[in-house]
């Protein structure tokens, strides 16, 4: 089967550039390669600062790539200009960690969910509203939420709104950047289950970015462990969990074992 996205030797360097001073480059992502099949989930696991969020921003065309290719929809997305990439972006959507900052507090939920349609243009107000209501229903929120504002919602509800917004343009790939980390444990489970259901119903591919190996194991088909910008270990979930070879993976595994509450979520 043809993968949805294929990343080859992705490199992202940040140059700390200030006028008249030496530029010191920091390599956040160092030649990372992976691919994701339709309807499957790849979990990108790593400690904070390991470069996994930079991968997410590069894939979503929100940061320019230093070198490497990102094959998506038959073209190399990394080589596209800002203007050209606007056409591609709707098909691969990103959901951020903190739903409090990813929703504009001045807008109503209905406006937020339908915003991609507004950007796309040529969608009548009425249709936007209907599709926003449908989108909300898909993530388990009723049409009564349309007129609410983000401040009136709980963290879990906000994350549902963010997911509904990401899905409204019917993307092929969803990049989930630490979407569960800002939530309470009980809510984490609910959102995780919602993600699984959505994947089944819509045939989405996920890039699930997390520092929580247990949660990754629960959701993903395949796991890639990142450390200092590189993928240090990659394979099917079972293989990684059973025989973690790298010290980094073992550390992460240990960290999640200590976390009893996360354990409880996994059992559910």
């Amino acid at each position, binding site marked *: 089967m043809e993968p949805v996205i294929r990343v080859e030797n992705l490199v992202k360097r940040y140059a700390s550039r200030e006028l008249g001073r030496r530029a010191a480059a920091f390599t956040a992502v160092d030649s990372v390669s992976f691919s994701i099949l339709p309807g499957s989930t790849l979990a990108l696991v790593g400690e904070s600062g390991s470069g996994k969020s930079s991968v997410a921003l590069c894939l979503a065309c*929100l940061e320019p790539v230093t070198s490497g290719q990102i094959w998506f929809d038959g073209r190399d997305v990394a080589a596209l200009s800002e203007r050209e990439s606007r056409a591609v*972006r709707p098909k691969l959507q990103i959901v*951020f960690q*903190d739903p409090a*900052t990813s929703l*504009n507090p001045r807008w109503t939920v209905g406006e*937020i969910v339908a915003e991609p349609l507004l*950007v796309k243009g040529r969608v009548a107000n009425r249709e936007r509203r209907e599709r926003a209501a449908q989108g909300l229903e898909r993530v388990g929120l009723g049409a009564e939420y349309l007129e609410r504002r983000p401040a009136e919602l709980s963290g879990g509800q906000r994350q549902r709104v963010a997911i509904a917004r990401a899905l409204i*343009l019917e993307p092929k790939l969803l990049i989930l950047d630490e979407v569960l980390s800002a939530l309470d444990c009980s809510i984490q489970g609910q959102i995780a289950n919602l993600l699984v259901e959505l994947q089944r119903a819509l045939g989405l591919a996920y890039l699930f970015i997390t520092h929580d190996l247990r949660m990754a194991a629960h959701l993903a088909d395949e796991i890639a462990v990142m450390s200092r910008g590189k993928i240090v270990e990659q394979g099917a979930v079972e293989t990684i969990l059973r025989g973690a070879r790298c010290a980094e993976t073992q550390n992460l595994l240990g960290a999640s074992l200590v976390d009893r509450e996360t354990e409880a979520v996994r059992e559910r």
Partner: protein
Amino acid sequence: MSTRSRLIICVLVLGALHLGVACAGFFAPYDPATQDREHPYAPPMWLHFLDAHRGIHLRPFAYAQESQTGSFDEYEENRARVIPVRFFVSGAPYRVLGVLPLRLHLFGADVPVYLLGTDGYGRDLLSRILFGGQVSLLAGLIGAGLTLSIGLCIGAAAGFWGGWKDEVLMRVAELFLALPWIYLLFAMRAFLPLAVPPVKAFLLVVVVIGAVGWARPARMVRGIVLSAKERNFVRAARGFGATGGYLLRRHILPETANVVLTQAAVLVPQFVLAEMTLSFLGLGVPEPLPSWGNLLASLQHYNVLVSYWWMYLPALAMVPFFLGYLVLASLLQGSSRATKIEVASAGV
């Protein structure tokens, strides 16, 4: 009282003050340019309710002022001549907001009544203060609008584009901040023609004042745009293909609304004062158009300063407006610490 209701009260009071000045023609008994050569430097007349025989009048009245023989500016109250004040009388024609022609005045009398006295040409000071307020406040309001528009455009451009354009724009802004602003105002005024008709002079003053102060609001707007650009909801909008124009219009500029409003409340009185200063020094709005600044200009003459205390009254006209704007600014700036320092220092 909640901040919101205080804000509403403050806006209402300020609105009423501005409305009063906007309807100067109605509250002022005379045309600001009408001269009464019989009564130069007439002192303010008091309104009385009790007459010399201890009779109570329901309608307020004034005593006529008659100049003493042999003096041109000393007057005596003639207790025998009672001038009753009438309300809602027809008088000198004027236009409300420059459009609607009317003759109705709040009060008037058969013989001229000068509640705040007259100037050297016998022009009614009350009428001149009210009409002068129109000029000065309009200069402040338009000037502030101009400054904020420039500041908003430059700040948004610098913050949104970033890179070398940001660098260049902010260096220019620093340049404008580095000059003591009144000297800058002078410098700009210096190279523009001096003797011009009043309306043109007014526009000139407004443009000069408006062009001087843009740097600080631009820096503040830039800061907000920079942080708004990195918000996740802006990133998300970019993620589904939004253009720069869309992001600015829908997400980024609305974030600056609070700062722009607060700055407006700070800048309007500051710019009214700038107009007053320029006109006071003879660089602003010229006679016969009255403005709070040029009404005070005669105080530069020693004899006026010493002899006619009421000529000082135009300086106090600004005080209620200053108070209103000060309260408004402090209510608007709310709880945000970062803007508080900037706002207050803008008042320096």
